[in-house]
């Protein structure tokens, strides 16, 4: 190797002790994502409005119906559904697909940025958004008289559970964005939300469901997630139900995060 060629190369960057470079990369990408979200309120305001609207409409219209079937604290029964509305971000991956379409994603890829950091940073920013939305929705519901069976600690665990679910769910959007690079395809991920949320015990206990709906609900991980969430809001500390809920999230996460990673690999190969 001649000295001339060596001069053309970049000097090696000294690696300072402390936070590893991939984590720094993810942090900087995440900060940029959060900043962009804050600059487009139209993207996150529906994520606040819809869950709150849903919760109050359901409480107002179905409380007496719930009482008739023995659900005395209907607010605590229905609140987890509202929270899942807040956590299940239908717009996940959209900013990334905009970057892909505009060519900015390529601009990032020609830098030495850690490839995984691009996904982790974007998903981390999404986690911040989901956490904020879930917290605000919970505060609103508490202010409107939601009685929480497990107290303040339960509130924290519930928000954490919903946020982790939100990250797992958002991985679907990122997987589609990275695999297809198509805004239309990424936006269509929203349709997955409906069977996931409604083919469950969202509005009635498992025993009250019949035929195929009960089978579908039994196979749906969100049924078990709801069971854990309702333990926190409605019935009290139930280690079994809460543990199963986290396991359901982990199972779903293993699938969706694998898909997102495969999408990333196909995009950066």
């Amino acid at each position, binding site marked *: 190797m001649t000295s*001339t*060629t*060596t*001069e*053309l190369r970049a000097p090696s960057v000294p690696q300072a002790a402390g936070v590893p470079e991939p984590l720094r990369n993810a942090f900087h990408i995440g900060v940029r994502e959060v900043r*962009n979200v804050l600059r487009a309120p139209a993207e996150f305001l529906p994520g606040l409005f819809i869950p709150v609207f849903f919760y109050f409409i359901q409480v107002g219209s179905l409380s007496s119906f719930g009482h008739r079937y023995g659900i005395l604290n209907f607010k605590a029964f229905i609140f987890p559904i509202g929270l899942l509305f807040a956590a299940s971000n239908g717009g996940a991956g959209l900013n990334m697909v905009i970057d892909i379409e505009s*060519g900015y*994603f390529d601009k990032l890829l020609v830098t030495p940025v850690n490839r995984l950091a691009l996904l982790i940073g974007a998903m981390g920013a999404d986690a911040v958004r989901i956490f904020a939305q879930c917290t605000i929705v919970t505060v609103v519901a508490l202010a409107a008289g939601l009685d929480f069976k497990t107290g303040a600690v339960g509130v924290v665990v519930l928000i954490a559970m919903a946020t982790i679910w939100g990250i797992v769910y958002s991985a679907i959007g990122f997987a589609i964005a990275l695999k297809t690079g198509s805004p239309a395809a990424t936006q269509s991920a929203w349709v997955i939300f409906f069977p996931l949320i409604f083919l469950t015990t969202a509005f009635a206990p498992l025993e009250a469901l019949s035929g195929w709906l009960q089978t579908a609900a039994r196979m749906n991980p969100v049924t078990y997630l709801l069971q854990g969430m309702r333990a926190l809001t409605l019935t009290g500390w139930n280690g079994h139900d809460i543990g199963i809920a986290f396991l359901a999230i982990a199972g779903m996460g293993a699938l969706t995060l694998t898909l997102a990673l495969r999408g990333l690999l196909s995009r950066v190969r």
Partner: protein
Amino acid sequence: MDAIEASGLVKTFSSRGDAPPIEAVAGIDLAVREGEIFGFLGPNGAGKSTTVRVFTTLTKPTAGSARVAGLDVVREAQQVRRTIGVALQEAGLDARATGRELLELQARLYGVRGEEPKRRAGELLDLVGLSDAADRRIQTYSGGMKRRVDLATALVHRPKIMFLDEPTSGLDPASRRTMWHEVRRLNKEDGITVFLTTQYLEEADELARRVAIIDQGKIVAQGTPAQLKGSIGADVLTVTVPAPRLKKAEQAVAALKGLKEIRADSRSLTLFIANGSAVVADVVRLMDEARVKVESVTVASPTLDDVFLRATGHRIEGSTQNGEVA
């Protein structure tokens, strides 16, 4: 030592269904010397951007090899990324960020830490004349401003080799001149080796020390602009006639003394001929004898478009001599 090298470089893309694979780059050999501006000239779809994507590690070659600063673009991709600056076609930028934010992030992704990204962003914004717009969102920038901030992002880590993929595409003439000035300055003052793709003949002629002309994935000519034009060894005489009489016109002038080659397109004949000015009268006479109406005759020194025409049989689509898109 060459700053950029390709040897037998091939890139194919698979097609849908039973269609054969598309060979975007079909066996390219080239060498760009340290410190030069190298023009990669060709029409849309010729394989210019695909070649740049291979050199910049965005896509892997199907066959052959490519090296940048002596580094293999596949095996040493991460080191290549640290070494090069890249401004891609269509200036992919984060429209919601301000110019300053974009540059600061870019610097941080290259491992620049502390207060240095802020300082470097300010310095670069000043360099490309965007200090006044530094804190405006990029979505409010004009096309020329976007190109300039894109160029600045490619410079944050002080690269010695830059890839500029059609850097003036879609710009007005004034913005194009500004960009040319900046590219020349980077090359002269900072000694940066520039690999520049373009479909504009004038741009290649003005900026590049050496040019490779690419068509359908293959390099059809390579050399300095003067060498390439000199290789024709003749004047270029263009005769415009009614389209239905083109064949007759070609037959009429086929025996002209000093004629090296004739190329025909839909409305005109291009004659590569020695001492072109002296034979204009003969051409008109021969056309008259063949009862072909001559609409115009021009004689000119060869251009890079003529080099392209001679090598490929067609002109660079969408380009004119002043660099405007037709």
